[in-house]
């Protein structure tokens, strides 16, 4: 199947953005979160620099609570493409016993994702970091620039963003400051799946429906991915035909009941989807405008 013109425009825009970063920054990195958007971003990076390899490493901030299938997919992907993969874990948070079940999603995300990311960026001195966020995901993301300035403390100042005109991106920063770059800004969830279909891009099998052991908790279906998820009184593990629209830490990510087992069927399911993909993300609903708050503190 040939790529449709609309997707060709999005593809070219993303490639253009990536080449700007490679040309203008000394030490860029690509945040690789293993999800479908990361898969598309990585595929675009290969296209942007072909026949060279992408001139930057991948960085995965591991909370140690990702689905096991994600970690396996991550390692296989880095090996298949011959790319350097950095994995960073906030060891201090781990030692404090921070986890999504007992600590709550808010503290867990703060320590194991946001803090960990900042530590990793500081450790390696990255001056630019690609993220796979899209503007259609969430309201504060809809407001963010493609080249999004971060202070030396990794903070985002949403009220004072640099004007960003045409395809001319201001890449100038002082020492310690950095830019988060979002090459998929103008893609929608449907675009991402259509592109995965058209380009035959591998994604984690968790996106496809399968019988999986789940437990219903607070109205959400949680996959029992390992023994760390303890059942509460009255809870029972059931085998259900489920898949995931978005992937994160498994105790914080809700499955949906679905029979879509191929990319075509996922696209078909999206015709009739009446909820947004982030609905399955328990961390977003913690407090209103919580994404903006997290982003200001340095979250991607």
């Amino acid at each position: 199947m040939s790529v449709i013109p609309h997707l060709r425009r999005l593809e070219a825009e993303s490639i253009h953005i990536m080449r700007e970063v490679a040309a203008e920054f000394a030490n860029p990195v690509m945040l690789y979160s293993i999800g479908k958007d990361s898969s598309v971003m990585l595929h675009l990076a290969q296209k942007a620099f072909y026949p060279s390899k992408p001139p930057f490493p991948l960085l995965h901030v591991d909370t140690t609570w990702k689905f096991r299938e994600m970690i396996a997919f991550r390692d296989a992907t880095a090996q298949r493409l011959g790319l350097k993969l950095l994995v960073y874990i906030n060891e201090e948070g781990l030692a404090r016993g921070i986890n999504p079940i007992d600590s709550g999603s808010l503290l867990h995300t703060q320590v194991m994702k946001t803090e960990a990311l900042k530590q990793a960026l500081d450790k390696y001195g990255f001056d630019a970091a690609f993220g796979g966020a899209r503007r259609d995901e969430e309201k504060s993301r809809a407001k963010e620039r493609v080249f999004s300035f971060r202070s030396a403390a990794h903070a985002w100042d949403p009220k004072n963003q640099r004007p960003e005109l045409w395809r001319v991106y201001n890449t100038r920063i002082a020492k310690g400051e950095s830019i988060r770059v979002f090459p998929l800004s103008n893609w929608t969830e449907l675009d991402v799946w259509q592109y995965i279909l058209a380009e035959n891009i591998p994604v984690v099998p968790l996106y496809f429906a399968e019988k999986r052991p789940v437990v219903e908790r607070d109205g959400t279906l949680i996959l029992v991915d390992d023994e760390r998820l303890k059942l509460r009184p009255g809870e029972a593990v059931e085998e259900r035909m489920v898949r995931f629209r978005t992937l994160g830490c498994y105790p914080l990510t809700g499955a949906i009941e679905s029979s879509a087992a191929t990319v075509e069927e996922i696209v078909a399911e999206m015709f009739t989807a009446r909820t947004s993909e982030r609905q399955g993300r328990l961390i977003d609903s913690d407090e209103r405008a919580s994404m903006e708050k997290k982003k200001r503190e340095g979250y991607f």
Partner: protein
Amino acid sequence: METALKSYLAAQEKKSLLRFLTCGSVDDGKSTLIGRLLYDSKLLFEDHLAALERDSRKFGTAGDDIDFALLVDGLEAEREQGITIDVAYRFFATDKRKFIVADTPGHEQYTRNMATGASNSELAVLLVDARKGVLTQTRRHAAIVSLLGIRHVILAVNKIDLVGYSQSVFENIADEFDDFAAHLGFLSRVAVPVSARFGDNVIAKSPNTPWYGGAPLLAVLETVDVDSALADKPFRLPVQWVNRPDLDFRGFSGTIVSGRVKVGDAVAVVPSGRSSRVTRIVTMDGDLAEAQAGEAVTLLLADEVDISRGDVLCAAGARAEVSDQFAAQLIWMAEEGLLPGRQYLLKLASATAPAQITALKHKLDVNTLDRLAAKTLRLNEIGNVNLSLARPLAFDPYTENRDMGGFVLIDRFTNATVGAGMIEFGLRRATNVHWQALDVNKAARSALKHQKPAVLWFTGLSGSGKSTLANIVERTLLADGRHTYLLDGDNVRHGLNRDLGFTDADRVENIRRVAETAKLFVDAGLIVLVSFISPFRSERRMARELMGEGEFVEIFVDTPLEVCIARDPKGLYQKARTGAIKNFTGIDSPYEPPEHAEIVLETVGFDPATEAAKIVAYLAQHGFIA
């Protein structure tokens, strides 16, 4: 489902994409209109809708109804204040088209964010409140979208329900706008009476406006022809990145911004003017025989040509222009006003070069489109300027090609994007006034004097001891048989710079003239001593960049302000403190100390002769005097 999916994907392939923005004054209902479009075209997910209903009760301004503006005003500050601060991007599709909407703020103070949204749009939906009619901000936004090259505008006369669906109100507003917009070069202008809150004439024609014979807003958006035929213009590819995986492959990666290119085509490298032929068009999906505007590719050429980032590959028969001087329209985007003469960084396509504004010809009164005389541009003002670049760049006029004619200006110290410009034309003056090649040059002149020319640039507060030190250094050099000249701030202001005052703009021009004069003396082979407060880093950097490598020696006379005030040799601090002198450095005008001066001298508790000797020693060590 299988066939339904196939036909769906087939339909997707035929869809075109329209990028548009909504703009207009505060409270005209821009965000509400977008919310309405998303809601009525059933593009709201249930969880978004639930959050919207929750937020409407908490923050809403629409009584018991859903407040659609809360869908797009995503920042906490926006929801609390009920205004739009920054541009938000929204996505929706109908059976005919895909849309990317930039919802831009109406407040004048956020005009730069509005320009951000407009720069990538093909059409503007300009909202007017039917009760208020055409306002200053309506005119401002119409002028800016026109300036940014948008050729299609829809005037949405909103809140038509609040004027009783009155035909005459609608027609008066449409006529008033027509009179103003007739001069703005739009190819299509359509006026639609709408109520974003109730949905009149948004998706479907409203029974409340039987007198309106036109199409509803969405139908106009679906059908307007915005094709700018970029692929039919001359081939341009600004080189972003040189692709060198191994010694045998040297590709030039970039996005084709106009025209098309085939294997075998002759191309020229601009500005260098060298030419070659395309041998391959490389992509990961296989080589292409041909590529066109909008595609991101990698080209291989037949010859070993020196090409780097910032160069533009052009059709050999239709090259981009080259100049180091332009006339341009400029939108100023920083709190600190424009300073003619100050050096900024200019970024155009993939090239970056130091640039300064050499003339501010006039600024635009957006309300009347009149041209007004101006000395500076303040935040959100639009002016017509001449720019001078440190090196020539390839360009096309903005009206021909947005990518080849649209640039931003960046402040060299804050790194902020301070302006956005649109090139009108290159100035022939630069192209035709070539350097006169002279037989006797700087090297010959300085050899005769047995010295290497240099600029000793003394900077520091008034009363810090610059002139004292410079005088001793010059006397020492003269006694040693060296050829020197001393430019002193106070003295120069009696002659060359007699017409300049002490505003920031005049200080910048003051330094520019002195630096150019020093440059001529250096060319004459002299060791030039410049004793100027020169409080701004950017001007000292500009002076440094005028000189040859190693010729500029910055000497920071680091005397604390309290000491200078106590010394006050000319009684100036006393006058500044009583207000008799304005803009006095250290009192009510800043001094930015150097970060990388070649020589730093302290004068408190040191003998001036000893300090001056350090400078002479530096000159000997670095081979200026043998």
